[in-house]
Every structure is written in C-alpha cells, then in structure tokens.
C-alpha cells in the first residue's frame, strides 16, 4: 500500500517523504544508542557500587538496583532528550567510560 502511494507522489513530495523517513531512522538510532549507553552506565554503576570483597553484597545489591532502575529511564531521557544540544550521548559515553576505568582501577 505504501509502495503504491509512493508511486503516485510527485518528486517534491517524494523527497519530503524520504527526508521524513530519514529523520525517523535517525531518531530511532539515537534512541537505541541512548538506551544502550544508559544500560551500560547502570551496569557499570552497579558493579562499581558493589564491594568486590565485601560480605554485605546480598543486601547492598538490592539498594543499588533501586538506584539502577531509577537511573535507567532518567539517563535514557538525558541521552535522547539532550540531542538538541548534542551533549546527551556524549555525557553517557563519558559516564560509562569513567565508570569502566575506575572499575578497572579499583580492581
């Protein structure tokens, strides 16, 4: 159906439709990247907050997960929403990278 409709469109309309589609693809990609990075930040944050040699991880992990679950949508919103100013994903990359590095450092 969409194919038939596109055949009937004028070249100008086609370009507009293509632009719109491209815009949507970009948004989806940005959202995917934001989701992955937000998830990575939560994961590394959790690992960082756990005490590798501690005895109280069983209790501690519940609280950390509470923060993780709260952070996940917030970070996703920051990562995706701040794309207007182009710093959303960068901030997530910096956070995830920083946490990974400090995890290695502490280990």
């Amino acid at each position: 159906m969409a194919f038939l409709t596109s055949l009937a469109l004028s070249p100008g309309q086609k370009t507009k439709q293509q632009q719109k589609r491209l815009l949507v693809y970009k948004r989806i990609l940005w959202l995917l990247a934001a989701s992955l990075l937000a998830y990575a930040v939560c994961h590394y944050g959790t690992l960082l907050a756990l005490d590798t040699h501690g005895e109280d991880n069983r209790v501690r992990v519940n609280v950390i997960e509470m923060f993780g679950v709260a952070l996940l949508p917030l970070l996703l919103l920051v990562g995706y929403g701040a794309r207007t100013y182009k710093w959303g994903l960068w901030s997530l990359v910096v956070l995830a990278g920083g946490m990974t590095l400090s995890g290695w450092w502490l280990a």
Partner: protein
Amino acid sequence: MTGEKPKRETFRVHMGWLHSWVGLLAGFILTAIFATGTLSVFDTEITHWMQPEAVLTGPPALTAHALQNAVETLEAEKTKGFSAFLNLPSVRDPFIRVIHYDGAQFVGAVLDPKTGDALPARQTAGGQFFFDFHYTLRSGPVIGSTIVTILAVCLLVAVGAGVAIHIRALWPDLVLFRPFGPRPRAWLDAHLLTGLLFLPFLIMMTYTGAVIRGRNILPPHPFLAAHTELDHPRGNGNGRRAHETPAQQPAPAIPPLLPLIEQAKTALNLPECSFILFSDTEVRIFGNDTASVFMNRDMAVFSRTDGHFLSTTIHREPASQATALMHGLHYARFPSLLLRWLYFISGLACTAMMAIGLILFFIKRRRASGDMLTFRLGEGLTMSCVTGLTASTLAFFWANRLLPATLPNRIHSEVSVFFILWALSFVHGVCFSLCKKPLSGWIMQTQAVLVLALGLPLLDAAGQSHDWHHNPSLYYSVDGLLFLTGVIALVALKRMKRAELS
C-alpha cells in the same frame, strides 16, 4: 526540495516523538497490566465473590484440629506432586487455604479454620488470575515478569517525556477540562488531567513495580552467588544442602502447628502470622504482611522433626527496610479499606489515562496515516485493549457464574473464556478498522460491555448463588461497580452514536 522549512528539531519535538511512540508500543500491554493490577487491589475480595459457597458460620477462630486437617490435605497434595503451603486465616481472608503454584497462579483447597473441613467452594482462578496476569502476563515468572519490568521502565520514560512536554503548562493542564470541546482537544484534556492528578501515584506504582523485579533486567552480579553461599553454609559436603534429605527418605511428620504459630507470634512480636512453608527439615512461619507498610517477610523457623525453635529472620537493617518499603507500597497489603479504595480509584484513573493516550494517538494521525495498514492494525489493537479487555474481564466474571461448579479443570475453562473473548475482540476490532468502519467497531464492543456489565448483577440475582445477608457489602460493591461500568458504557455509546450520525 519542496521549499518548505523542515520542522525544527527542538527539545519538545524530541520528547513528543518519544512520548508518542514509546507510549503507544508499550501502552498496548501496559493498559492491560494496569487494569489487572488495579483489580488485584481487591484480589481476595474477587476470589470471595467467585467462591460464594465458602461461607463461615462462626468467627474465624483457628483450632489445632483444623490445622491438623490442613496438614493432612497438604500431605495429600504432596503425594500428587504439588509443593503446597498453608495460608493462615486473616481478617481479610478468614479461611485456611492449602495452596500450590500451578505454573500460572496459586490455587488450592479452602478449609474451615474451626473444623478444618474442606468447604465446597468451586475451583476458580479468582482474583489471583488478575494478580498473576499483572506481573507475569501468564508467561511464567521469568519471561513474563522480565517483559513487565522492561515495560515499566518504558512507562517511566514515557512519563518523563510527557512531563518534559507539558512542564510549562502544568497548572493550566491541571485545571482545564473541556469534555464538550472538539474531539482531539477533549481527549487530550482528559489525558492530561488524569495524568497530572495521578502522576505521583503513577510514578510510585511504576517505579516500585520495576524495582521489585529489577534484577530481571539488570545484568547479573558476579559476586552475588558466591556470597549467598558464603552467608548460608548449609552444605554438608556431599553437594546437598543440609535441609535437603535424600529422596528415598520420607520427610518427618509435621509437628502440631498451633503452638508453633503462637511461638512465632511472640518471637516476631506480631499479632498474626500469614503463611507457613515446609521443607524436609524445617517449618517456616511468616509474619503478617498487613502489619505495616514495610513488607519485611519476617519469619520464625522451627525444626520439622520435633518442632523446636531454631531461629528467626527479622530484617531491620536500613537497606532491607528500603526494599521492604518498595514491596509494601506496591503490593498494598497494609492499607485500610479506605486506602485500598484510593489505590483502586487511582489505578483506574491511570488505566484510563493510558487508554485515552492510545485513542488520542490514532485520532491525531488519522488524517495523515489513516490508510496505512499498520494504522488499521494499531487501531484494532487499541479497541481490544480498551473495550475488548473490559468485555473479556466481565466475561470472566460471567464464566465464573455460568460454568458448572463441578466442571473438571474449571480454572482453565474460566481463563480460556477470558483469553478467547479478548482475542475475538482483537479480530473484530481489526476487521472493522480494515473496513474503515472503526466507529462501528467501537460501538459494537461498547454495546457488549454494556450488556455484560448490566447483565451480570441480574444473572447473579437470578442464579441465587449466594446468600445476600452474608458479606453483603462485597456483593453490593461488585454490583455497584458493574452498574457504574454500564453507565459509562451507555454514555460513551450515546456520544459515539451521535458522532456516527453527524
């Protein structure tokens, strides 16, 4: 190039897109999750309505004899291969229930707390069905609850994006409702009003729900398993835990439970105990969840061999209390009746907000994308999520009254009625939407809701399935809610018919 200026990619535009699409894709299932979660607030009461034969003649005083009978029933369940446990009588549910998990929900016999005799209650999925669907989508505790948790995070994202869109106009949105305005405006007002008024409840329930099963979506923690083992060194060196006995050795007989319950009450410093679990070596008696907003699951452990007291597990550390608070707020076992009704009304409002959001999505895009196949499918799906779900829920209640009480595999039949009707409503909605007659589809489904809602009290009265003097508030409340549903369906029907004519 067309020469038209492309829409500026502003923050609000981004958030609007995110809110619309995440809200739509997650909203189809979230509407059902919230609707069934709302009904789960009164799951025990729904089960009572669905088991009208379970009537107590005297006060629910627990006796040793009744507990002994319950243990015998429990042992009989074990021979059938079910790992059952005892639910003790409480103010809300004054029966002893010997229940097991059947792979989808908790089911089992209902016993009189005084005599221990099995009450001739019909087998029913009851309110447990809604509770189970709410958190597992009938797909098991791993896959289902993982999906539900992911959807909860999606809902938090959609809510965050929605707040970001409307942050500048929060106050006007809160006080402005134009039900007789043009269609998209009226729907948008209703969506914003319900969304804003119940925003704290929505966030609280969604967040606590996501936290409860948060471990399902977060990556596994490598240190956790090792420390769990370290904290509980129960292994006896042959790879079997201390509380597990070899399969060929039968477990010792369960000691008299009434003294143990009294002892547990004293040890846990609680007025009531809620349920008892049995392992091959231990009897674990859990404190009542209704005592406080912190759902701690404190327990007293006794030896199964001779009933001597072994230990208590009382969680009072701040970290455990934080988790217990999350559980308590979400499960809502602590509140008084009034507060439970508030939970119920807030849940209904949030469900309505999501349903309105779905409807609004398609109203706004009908002109631009109304001919697309995906639009038609989505509209049909919306129909089944709003009117179809309501109709199938009502049909589930009808099935409880119409199916013979002695029907074998009755629970399965009740649940099948729900799902078959829901699937039919989807097919019906999609068909009407594909034929470009969505309004006719909405009208027909709303008519079905009207008939089912107003007919159920009549069926209930005609069937004389229960004594109206016993627990009258339960039956009057259900009938009142059904009447209200019928009235809402009638008003909606009138407005849709007017729209169809114009």
